């Protein structure tokens, strides 16, 4: 009855497009011998839907959402690890990873410059930009 449970159940007419790329880790992954594209394993997505999800997360991440790219990489971590399986999904996940690293590098460069540089580097603008002053001015921190 194992055939009912493998992800190829609904694609029984197609040949298996996902040969197990790493026979050494087969026993450590799952007894059915199948590598799942998501980190949830058998509880997650099948391969066809994962391409769709990876693509949508990648595209949405361009709306200033590097965290979404990071979540994309986290969710499809097995795709990154096994480089020969899941070719279409891997394309988007790798691009998300690159995007996330670039954005994080830029953002942390700016944030670190701001916090370490402080007033000596920026002058009076620092006081105008720092968050707790902005909050005080807008009255946001009046709750406690």
């Amino acid at each position, binding site marked *: 009855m*194992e055939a009912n*449970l493998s992800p190829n159940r609904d694609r029984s007419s197609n040949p298996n497009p996902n040969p197990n790329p790493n026979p050494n880790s087969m026993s450590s992954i799952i*007894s059915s011998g199948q590598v799942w594209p998501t980190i*949830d394993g*058998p509880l997650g997505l099948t391969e066809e839907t994962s391409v769709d999800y990876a693509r949508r997360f990648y595209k949405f991440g361009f709306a200033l959402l590097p*965290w979404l790219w990071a979540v994309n990489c986290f969710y499809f971590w097995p795709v990154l690890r096994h480089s020969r399986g899941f070719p279409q999904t891997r394309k988007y996940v790798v691009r998300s990873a690159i995007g996330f690293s670039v954005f994080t590098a830029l953002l942390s460069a700016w944030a670190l410059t701001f*916090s370490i540089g402080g007033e000596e580097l920026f002058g009076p603008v620092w006081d105008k930009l720092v*968050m707790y002053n902005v909050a005080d001015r807008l009255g946001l921190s009046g*709750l406690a």
Partner: protein
Amino acid sequence: MDRNQRHRSILDSLGEELIGILTPVSICMFTVVLLVCLLNSDPSSSSSSASFSSIATAAYAESDSDSSWDKLAGAFLNSLVFVAAITVATFVLVLLFYLRCVKFLKFYMGFSAFVVLANLGGEILVLLIDRFRFPIDSVTFLILLFNFSVVGVFAVFVSKFSILITQGYLVVIGVLVAFFFTMLPEWTTWTLLVALAIYDIAAVLLPVGPLRLLVEMAISRDEDIPALVYEARPVLRNDSVSVQRRVWRERNSSQNHSSDIENAPREDEVVRVVRVETESEEEDFGLSERSEISMPLIDRSGESSETFLEGIGLGSSGAIKLGLGDFIFYSVLVGRAAMYDLMTVYACYLAIIAGLGVTLMLLSVYQKALPALPVSIMLGVVFYFLARLLLEVFVVQCSSNLVMF
């Protein structure tokens, strides 16, 4: 289909399933206590009632100068208004679900998650930044907050998202709402908790209760209730040949496969009651209304999945689900206890966990919809007052005389 084998396998996986639901509840409570201890410099109730007004303080705003009897009466009025508001909102939800406006409900869920994460999350982060004088600039802060909220909406909205991230975001939403509820005046908080526990019993067990209606409709239509519900990871059974998949609607297909166990799924379906939280209204009026719904927990227990596995090799997930409202009110209780002293926190935490265990046990005994709030809240409230009035005196005396620390 050996009976003994089934019971042994349930006991094996029961510990893992219990941990799967106790861990997030504990994390939520711990985080709320942490936030309360960090951010609560002013213990008096008058300032907090002035700064946080919601529908729960609409009838009466507590101030220090009132007598005890006035405070009690005012708190009682507040709770009555709040419970009435929740009842109305729950009936509206039942009506919408009956009229099959599922898309609207899902959209509303996503919208409320966004409001909670962006608004309340932003406020708490600002409070933390202010408290620790963390030198972050507003641009970075806005980007981070925007990211955090939007991905949270995705986690709640998108049906097959990463389990861990969805669970994390639900716990965060619970923490945020619970923290804001702890800022209600003290008497109001306690009477509100008791009133909600009583409402929970009524709404779930009475045949006219809105939650019971909702559960029955969801079961009869075989749909998921569109609400914020925390779902623990389904337990994978190592001894079985096949592996359980998180099957959302495939119960029907599995029923068709074997005719001899066709009546089994309905009997084995254990329904638990949980709370679900939906939020309405904007924060800019200073009003925020929380409406709550108790939902049954659909737990396809290990028994049914074992029979499926032996018969046809396809199991349905036996995941425990707990509504977000339960998280919130447990954490409110513990957060309020933290405002007095940490000793009451320990007492209330143990009481709540014990209550949750009792609720799960009652569930397995009765095999029908049960409310998740009453036992824990009642135990928690009793333990809080016992600890505050009796235990503290004892422990302080012992410590100051160096008998026991």
